[in-house]
């Protein structure tokens, strides 16, 4: 069993500005852990997480893949989240480079078909569209109509980013209409299916696993 990363360097006051790991985060960790064997066999060179927040997910992935240390890169639009991600990596012995940017802007075309493990716990909450576009903690949850607006902006990049053997893990809730998202990904030629789901209070959460 891979322990949840040590986040003791982050406090309640940090979580006013960055997303605190919650049930959704842990569901993503569980999906990665369930695939431990496959991920190790994949022997990834490049792992990318979009919107890494506290850095919990990428740090966990880095720990899971040890002793191999792939190139771990993450993005976040929130500068405080970017700092937290790097700190969390350091605290747990995982080297992570973080770029403050929106989704994957600046990383294409250089990472074209190069990403072996792609993770995205998106801002999935259903909110008014106007709430999208901030650089604070609201960027971690505000998803607009059906909670899908940021997800739908990101989806076309998946085929640009994923390597031939790459795997993409995407967290969704039922309001995001997972079946529709899966269909969109299948339309891009991917195999996509729900590999894990859980009820967190009233929220039904899913992990969609996507491969070529």
């Amino acid at each position, binding site marked *: 069993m891979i322990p949840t990363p040590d986040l003791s360097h982050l406090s309640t006051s940090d979580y006013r500005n960055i997303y605190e790991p919650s049930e959704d985060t842990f569901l993503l960790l569980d999906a990665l852990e369930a695939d431990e064997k496959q991920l190790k066999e994949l022997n990834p*060179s490049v792992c990318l997480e979009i919107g890494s927040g506290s850095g919990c997910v990428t740090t966990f992935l880095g720990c899971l893949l040890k002793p191999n240390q792939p190139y771990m890169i993450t993005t976040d639009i929130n500068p405080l989240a970017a700092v937290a991600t790097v700190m969390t990596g350091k605290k747990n012995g995982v*080297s992570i*480079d973080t770029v403050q940017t929106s989704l994957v*802007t*600046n990383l294409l075309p250089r990472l074209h078909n190069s990403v072996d493990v792609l993770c995205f716990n998106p801002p999935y909450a259903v909110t008014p569209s106007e709430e999208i576009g901030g650089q604070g903690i609201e960027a971690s949850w505000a998803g607009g109509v059906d909670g899908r607006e940021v997800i739908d902006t990101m989806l076309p990049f998946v085929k640009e980013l994923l390597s031939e053997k790459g795997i993409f893990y995407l967290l969704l809730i039922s309001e995001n209409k997972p079946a529709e998202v899966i269909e969109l990904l299948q339309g891009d030629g991917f195999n996509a299916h729900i590999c894990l789901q859980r009820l967190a209070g009233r929220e039904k959460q899913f992990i969609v696993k996507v491969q070529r």
Partner: protein
Amino acid sequence: MRLITHNMLQCHVKNCNDNNFPLRLEEVEVELVEADFQADFLRNILGKLEWEALVNTAVQVGNTSLPATIPDNAADNEEFLKVLHNALLETHIQSGNMVCPNCQHVYPVKDGIPNMLLAEHEI
């Protein structure tokens, strides 16, 4: 950020489409942080690097150890892989600026994190 990340970043100012990579380093503070040497990883990542950009960037931070071209025997050349490891994974840009060679847009680096966000009118 390590030089490997610098090797992945390009300018995305609206209509800046040519000669927008690699970003030139200015007034950077560099830190060397020891990392585990992984020959296999280096062999795998080699094909994903823009070599000339890496060599030129390393020179900008005072590292002149990289050869101008990737040696033919790179995969088995431990001496080469060690030099690459040092430049790519142990050389961190902690602060400074990255400047687009084309449009001259300045992307600041602070606490080792590049800020690639643009103002609304630049997108």
